[in-house]
Structures are given as C-alpha cells and as structure tokens.
C-alpha cells in the first residue's frame, strides 16, 4: 500500500523502487545548496588569506617559522572563519540507499558527491529488529532509524553511516516506509524459520 510517488521535504527527497528484480530499494536524496558551497569555499579562502603569510626567503627553516606567523588579532577571525566554513559546509552525502533483499540481507549504501560509495551489508539473520528512535541532544530533537543486531551492544544507524558535523536527519515520514519495509523483511524471515 505504499505510494510510489516521491516525498519531498526541505532538502530531502524520498524515492522507493519496489519492483526492481525482487529487491526493495529505498533512497533518500539530499539537495545541495549552491550558496552553501560558495560561502564555505570563500570562507576557507578568507581564512587562509588573512592568517597565513608567505614570506619568500632563502632559508628553509625561516620559511617554516614565518609560515606559522599568526597575528594576535586574527585568532578570533580564525575561529569565526573556520566555524562558518564548517557549518555552512555542504553535506558531502549525495544520497543514502537501503536495499532490502528478502531472506538474504539488507545493504546500506552512502553515495557521496565526490563519487565515493560506502556500502555495508547486514545479513538478515543478524538483525533482531528495526526501530525509530527519538534522539535528544542539548540543542535539538530528531528521529533516526536504527537496527538492533544480535549479540551486539550498539545500535546500527541506517541513515547516518558517517559522523559529520552536518548530520543527515531525514524527516519521520520518510523513515516510516523504510522502517515498515525492514520490519516486513525481518518478520518474513522469522516466520520462515519457525
């Protein structure tokens, strides 16, 4: 009963493909804002420009010392520029994919804008359950989808495979179909065992 139409919410969009070769594929794509990229790069340039002096000398060690020559006043500007660059930093993640192979396993993929793909496969027998967590941090509160694995004390996050300052936080309405599909796959496996 799931809808095939994509769901959009701010910078995330959810796509579901349930018919490709008996695999269940759920994707969450992240939009990149051009302004964010421009600002972050320009901030890095400003940071380098104001704080690092290149002095042309013949002696190598003096070159190194003066490379580290930092003005007192610029300590504050270092911090500000660095923080701005970091927080306006574009999210390197292009999309996150969950491929559910019935009775076999679940593959979690992270595609980056640079072209790199990180994949993680979890066999179905290892998954105990999938759950939606409400995570509370000192400044915010968000939902995350996690897998409970057998014999392991840690939960495995489905959509946050990398730790970055800008976390992927897709909204709940996109997590719910993925969660439901995972539950269905796990339940099928349980019933087939018993």
């Amino acid at each position, binding site marked *: *009963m*799931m*809808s095939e139409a994509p*769901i959009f919410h*701010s910078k995330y969009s959810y796509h579901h493909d349930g018919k490709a070769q008996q695999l269940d594929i759920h994707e969450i794509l992240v939009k990149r804002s051009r302004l964010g990229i421009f600002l972050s790069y320009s901030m890095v340039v400003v940071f380098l420009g104001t704080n690092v002096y290149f002095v042309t000398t013949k002696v190598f060690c003096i070159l190194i*010392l003066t490379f*580290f*020559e*930092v003005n*007192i*006043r610029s*300590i*504050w500007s*270092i*911090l500000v520029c*660095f923080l701005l660059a*970091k927080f306006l930093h574009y999210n390197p993640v292009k999309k996150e994919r969950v491929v559910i192979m019935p009775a076999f396993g679940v593959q979690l993929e992270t595609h980056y804008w640079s072209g790199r793909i990180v994949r993680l496969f979890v066999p179905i027998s290892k998954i105990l*359950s*999938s*759950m*939606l*967590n*409400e*995570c*509370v*941090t*000192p*400044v*915010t*509160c968000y*939902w*995350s989808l*996690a897998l*409970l694995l057998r014999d392991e*004390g*840690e*939960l495995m*996050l489905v959509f*946050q495979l990398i*730790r*970055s*300052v800008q976390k992927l936080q897709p*909204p*709940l*309405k996109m997590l*719910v*179909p993925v*969660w*439901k599909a995972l*539950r269905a796959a796990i339940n099928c496996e349980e019933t087939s065992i018993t």
Partner: protein
Amino acid sequence: MDQQRKHTILMVSDFFYPNFGGVESHIYYLSQCLLKLGHKTEPDLNAFAFKIGLVVVMTHSYGKRTGVRYVTNGLKVYYVPWRAFLMQNTLPTFYLTLPIIRTILIRERISIVHGHQAFSTLCHEALMHARTMGYKVVFTDHSLYGFADVGSIHMNKVLQFTLADISQAICVSHTSKENTVLRSGITPDRVFVVPNAVDTAMFTPSTCRLSCDEIVIVVISRLVYRKGADLLVEVIPEVCHLFSNVRFIVGGDGPKRVRLEEMREKHSLQDRVEMLGAVPHARVRSVLISGHIFLNSSLTEAFCIAILEAASCGLLTVLPDDMVVLSEPDPGDMVHAIRKAIVMLPSIDPYAMHQRMKKLYSWHDVAKRTEIVYDRALQSSDENLLRRLPRYLKCGSWAGKMFCLVMIVNFLLWCLLDLWQPVESIEEVPDLVFIRNEHEDVRIFVFLRLNGFRWRGMDCSQWVFGDAFIPSSGSGFCNRSGKFQWISEVAFIFRRVFDLRQRIRFRFVFRNGFGGLRLFCFVIALLLCVLNSVRFESGVSLIRMLVSFD
C-alpha cells in the same frame, strides 16, 4: 473530540523522577490525573472549554538517563542532556536552552507551559523562552522563602522577573500565596490556591490496630535546621523522661543526624529511640503504620504532604481540630502538645481519619482545579513584545532595565533561530495512545496527522502501515469510530526495546550527538596552542593573548 481542540501541557522542572520529593511527586500525580481527565467519556468533554490531550514533562538528565522516556499511562518525559551543576539544577545559561525548548514546544504542539518550583533554573528559562514565543505560561510555587539572606534576595529577584509576565500562578496554600505575592510583587488576583493532595490508595491504615500500652511516635523528615531537627533534640529526652511508655522512631537523614545520635548517647535512649536513616519513599507507609502519633517539627512549611500521608495512615497529627494538636516551635510547648495527643489517642479511629482524608484531599480534585487555571490562562490575550516590556520595568530601577534587555536579546535570538531552522522544518510528533484491551495487553496506537489537522480527510493511504488491529473491547476511545485504527508499532517497538536495552540507545545517542563537535573543539584548541607556542616565547603572553581578544 473532533470539534474540540485538544491541549497539550508541558511541565517543566529540574525536579522529577528518579529524584524523590514533594515537587517530583506533585508533577507526577498531577500529570497522571490530567491524562486521565483528558480521556474521559464523551459527556464530560464539554464541561470545560478545552480538553487536555497530552501532558509532556521536561527535565534535565539524571546520570545516564537521557533522551525520551515514557512512564505510566504514556506520560512522555524529555530528559534533556544538560548536566546538573548544583543541587539538581541545570547550569543557568540564559539563552542556550532556547533551541531545545523551541524544538520541543513546536514538535509536541504545546499549548501551555507549566513551570514548577522557584528554585529550578530550567523552569525559569523555559518560562522566559515560552513567553518570548507567545505561549501561555503557568507557574506553581511549592516552597516558602525568606527575604533577608543573600540567596533569598537573588532568588526573589529572579522570581520577580519570571512572574512579571506570567498568565497565571498557583500556590499550594494560602500562606504560600501570601509569601509568593510579597516576594514577587505579582497581583494577588492572578494567583490561585490549589493545595497538594496525597495518594490515599497508597497510604492506608494498618489492618490490625496497635495496642496503646506502648505509644510509638514517628518522625519522618529530612534532618535539617528548617525541619526543626534541633527542636527534636530537646523534645525527645523530655518526653521520654515524662512518659515511660513512649517510644520514638526517627526516619530520615541529614546534617543534624549527628546531633540526634549524640542526644541518644547522652541520655542513654538507645532502646527508646530508633534511628532508621534515609527511608525510601516506597517504605514510608510501613514505617508510618508502626506508630500511633506523627510528630512534625518543621519551622516552616508551604504545604506538608508528610502530614497528609500520616493522617491518611490513621496517625494523630496536624489537621482539622479533632485530628490536630498544634503547638508553638518551642520545646516546652511541644511536650505539652504531645501529652495532649497521648491523652487523645484512645479515641482516634484510623479508618475514619483515612476516609476523611480521601474526601478532602485527592489528586483528581487538584487536577480539576488546575484545569480551571489553565482555562483562565488560555483566555488571556496574546500580546507582542512591546506590550510586554513595560511589565519588566516595574521590577526595579536597574533590574527592570536589565530584564528588558534580556527579553529583547531573547526575542532577537528567537528570530535568528527562526531563520536558521524554520518552523516547517521541525516535524510534529505522532500522537501515541495507550489502550488496554480485555486481555490487559497494552497496545499502543499511533495517530498521525495530515497537514497539521487531525483526522481531516481520510486520504491517508500513504500513512497506513502495519496490520489493521481491531480491539474487541477496551476504551471508548477506540470504539468511537472506525477512523482510529491507524496502527503503528513504532511505540510498541519502543516498549519492547525499553525492556531490553534501555541504556544503550540513549548512551549511544548522546555520544553520537557530541562526538564530532567535541573532537572539532579539541582540534581547534590544540591548533591554537601549537600556533601560539611557536609564536611567543613565554606562557604569560599566551594568557594575555587569550584574555584580550581584539
């Protein structure tokens, strides 16, 4: 239910379970009774202009207990991971709690924010932010404070700031109302008196009546100056000397315990005075029913729940004339009062006392009265910042202007936060309803909203998931219409996992949320140190540099 809008209350305080105390149990029992009121059958729904839908509690984290927890009857508690720094209070950061409070207020669709206890910094900050964002605010004061010492002066100023712009206030007794009004300068007509109550179901008299051959006097309180521990030190030997058949049981711990022990040694009363130490709340009843008389020697009490608990257990104590023996806070007078109590003892019927307590004090009554206060609070008009600022100016010549500045900065920060994280990007939480069917199996139903309107239109095809579950009986809530069969096992999984691995999830979350930021700050600090050690010759200039940012 479709016609009336349900209201959600947010209870904010630094003090909540797993801490035990008067404020904590007040919040807990009040929330439970409000939840029960919110789920009453149809005819009662129209009694008030609004209906309580949900109650959410917000407090700081206690040790490893952080994140979202659900306690009895689906009461949702947010243990926000701000560490306590002094006597269970969060660090007062003024503006740093704004993002999380704003997020919680928006995602839970809160209508009223109810703060508890003047001593709680989280409460004051939450009320300040809620007022800035335009929510209706209610405050309950649980304690009496003085006027003379430095701590009280500061506390009263903070209270003046909070109560300058509040919708309604609640106090637990008339004395407390007088005290609050004098301390904060609020107009008395905005203060309601809603007394505390006692859980009479938990505090019942003993089934077998104790014999009056040996009279047992029970004292349960924190052994501090304020609770009159010094008076006890004088009174106990005197009474033991006058009456040979009297025994004391002293429960509780505190700085004055040493004095009581010394008194015991000095007068050789080891066999007549029993010291129990700290008594956990669950065992209080068993201690109370082992006695005939309850002695309370507090110098000052806003509302003493301990006395109610004792009276509910059938002990002779301080209450309506035939249940009470009052005295001045003076040892001689107290001994005289105890003598009177011993004489009165044979005529006391514990069960009759318990029944009277049940009628006089009940949490359901407190919840109903609190609902009236909420009703009144919601009827107050919405005002913008300019209208509200003059109220702060009345707080004092310097303080008033400072408070205005604080509120203006808060407003600006709120606007900035609105730009950084717009309201649309904060998702609302699906409602959870806990229902028991005839198998006493708690099934949890989740009702999702569409476009911010509840139950508007039934084109919910993209929200249906899980199997349709039709409870055969159960509450009227489910049988009311066929609409309420949206089932998700989101919370059901929560429940199962709570039983399995409670701590792991929240520890993981906390760590994950902070790992990147901590590492980042550490790297920055290291970089700065390295850069500065290369640049400057001595450490003194490093410190000078750190102090004077240009």
